[in-house]
């Protein structure tokens, strides 16, 4: 078995009630790479992403068939979901900092895991904010509410919050779609620098973004993965006609 494979899904089907949102997905996601998911709206990108840290547990009518192996272990089997989520972090489309101070936002996850030591927490907060390229902007207002930050800063805070858990994988669902171009550029820079430490999976509607930051790209359509390959190949030499149509904008 290839030890570099982080996630491996086998014949993954997902149903919302009677509606099948994912159809027999087989995908291998490698460690310390950036994998991008593209595809038209409603094709199941978010649904698939949320399978990877079992966020779909929150939705009552979801049924899943097939396997999702994380480091070789099926995450829908008898595993500790809390532990899975500390190892597979998630950043959402809309920045969702908690209505507490910047410091508390970062310290929240570690505290929930039982970290109490003030010095340890202080160091972790600083390290995470630094890694998320936010430290310099907020170091003087750590105890102010996180809701006072700009949208871009809030999103970087959410990334910092995720990094503080020291996860192995970071899932990002359109993390820049609510941001302006400058904030977007900052987050893209951030992702490139995080790449060496973390496995990143990102959903995006921006072809350019996928092209700029990802190593591999998966094209989703109506719940199926049409094509999954090296990013340059997807964008310059797609094998499937439908991928080409989508890339070139001739599609829906």
């Amino acid at each position, binding site marked *: 078995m290839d030890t570099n494979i982080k996630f491996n899904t086998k014949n993954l089907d997902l149903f919302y009630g009677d509606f099948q949102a994912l159809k027999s997905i087989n995908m291998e996601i490698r460690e310390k790479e950036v994998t991008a998911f593209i595809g038209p709206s409603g094709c199941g990108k978010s649904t698939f992403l949320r399978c990877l*840290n079992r*966020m779909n547990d*929150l939705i*009552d009518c979801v049924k899943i068939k097939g396997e999702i192996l994380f480091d070789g272990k099926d995450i829908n089997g008898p595993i500790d979901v*809390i*532990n899975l*989520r*500390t190892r597979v*972090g*998630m950043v*959402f489309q*809309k920045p*969702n*900092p*908690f*209505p*507490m101070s910047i410091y508390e936002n970062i310290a*929240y*996850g570690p505290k*929930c*895991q039982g970290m109490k030591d003030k010095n340890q927490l202080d160091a972790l907060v600083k390290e995470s904010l630094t890694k998320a390229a936010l430290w310099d902007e907020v170091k003087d207002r750590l105890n*102010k*509410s996180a*809701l*006072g930050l700009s949208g871009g800063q809030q999103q970087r805070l*959410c990334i910092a*919050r*995720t990094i503080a*858990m020291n996860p192995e994988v970071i899932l990002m669902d359109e993390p820049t779609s609510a941001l302006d171009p400058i904030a977007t550029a900052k987050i893209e820079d951030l992702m490139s620098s995080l790449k060496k430490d973390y496995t990143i999976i990102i959903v995006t509607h921006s072809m350019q973004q996928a092209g700029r930051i990802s190593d591999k790209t998966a094209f989703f359509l109506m719940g199926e993965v049409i094509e999954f390959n090296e990013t340059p190949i997807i964008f310059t030499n797609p094998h499937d006609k439908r991928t080409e149509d989508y890339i070139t904008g001739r599609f829906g």
Partner: protein
Amino acid sequence: MGRTAKDSLVKGIIYLATGITLSVLLSIVGFIFVKGIGLVNWDFLTRDYNEKVVYAFVESGEVPLSIDEESLKSKQPYDQRYETLQEGPIYVENIGAAIASVSYKNHSTEREQIVISYIEKDSPLNGAIDSTGKAITIGTDYILQSINGTDFGDMTLEEVAETITAESGELKIKVVQPGGGIKSNIITTLYMVLLSLIVALPLGIFGAIYLTEYAKPGRLVNAIRFAAECLAGIPSIIFGLFGMAFFVVAMNFQISLISGSLTVAIILLPVIIRSTEEALKTVPMAFREGSLALGATKLQTIFKVVLPCAVPGIATAVLLSIGRVVGESAALLLTAGTVAQIPGTLFSPGSTLTVQAYYVAKEEGNIELACAIGIVIIVIVIVLNILSRITSDKLDVFNKK
């Protein structure tokens, strides 16, 4: 009829209706104030409802009158609606105070009595102690009944003054502190609010958490919601009857603070559940997802993220509840009783302000006193409303940027 004519007709009706509503409301509040305001003062708030007999020990002295006869005469500190001056006042030097004879006439009683009408600044009465040596106050409307064992009984005012003047050394004076105060009712109301909230708040909040965060939407949840809504609409006398049958009789708690507060707690539950539920529902799903995605457990998510966001809503529920308890009469009448006393234990009876207002109006026909209590209740309700605005702004986590 033209369109403009119709419009102005409708407009007129709207204005008229608003005017009538406003003036009715204002005149009710006005009536209560006019009727009751004469009785509202510090003594009213801090005295017991029942008259209290006190034995005061006083070292007699020699204090000359420092004001002229005219101004002494003008001092009539007693309640002039019930008491009319008959004789006096006469100033008595060895107690440094003036006494007067008044006739007292209330709805149920009529009598002549000797009252203190004026006390000099350095009167020995100001240093009065009780039999245990504790300092006590003697006020200017206290009734005098005896001195060193000599009862004033049928004496005239002059005779009383002579009797007092004849005494010297340590004086043992029997005075009656006038009643009519609502201290015990205020305290009972406070107890009632605290106890019922202690019971209803945790139950209501946990119930709401269960309904919004844990229960799978379906028949059961709908049934619980429906029940809560029905409970909210049932008149409180029904709860009173239940409380009487269950707490007072079946549980043998008697008519008491505990029976009353448990009954009120049941009345409060639906209010608290509803408003907490509303508050929890307004907390964005994104916070719950964000928290869970960080590896927090569901319980941690609820207590560290969701509940703090809901605090303003819960605070509003608490203040609404306090208003409910303060305003509750029917249920408490049946379960906590009408005894105007500070409840010594959980199992002693006591009457809240509202019940007392009912009691004095209905049983004693004393509308003025009832209105005076009404003023206190109105003030409490207004203060609560102002507080609820301030707190829900202050506690709002979304406000603190």
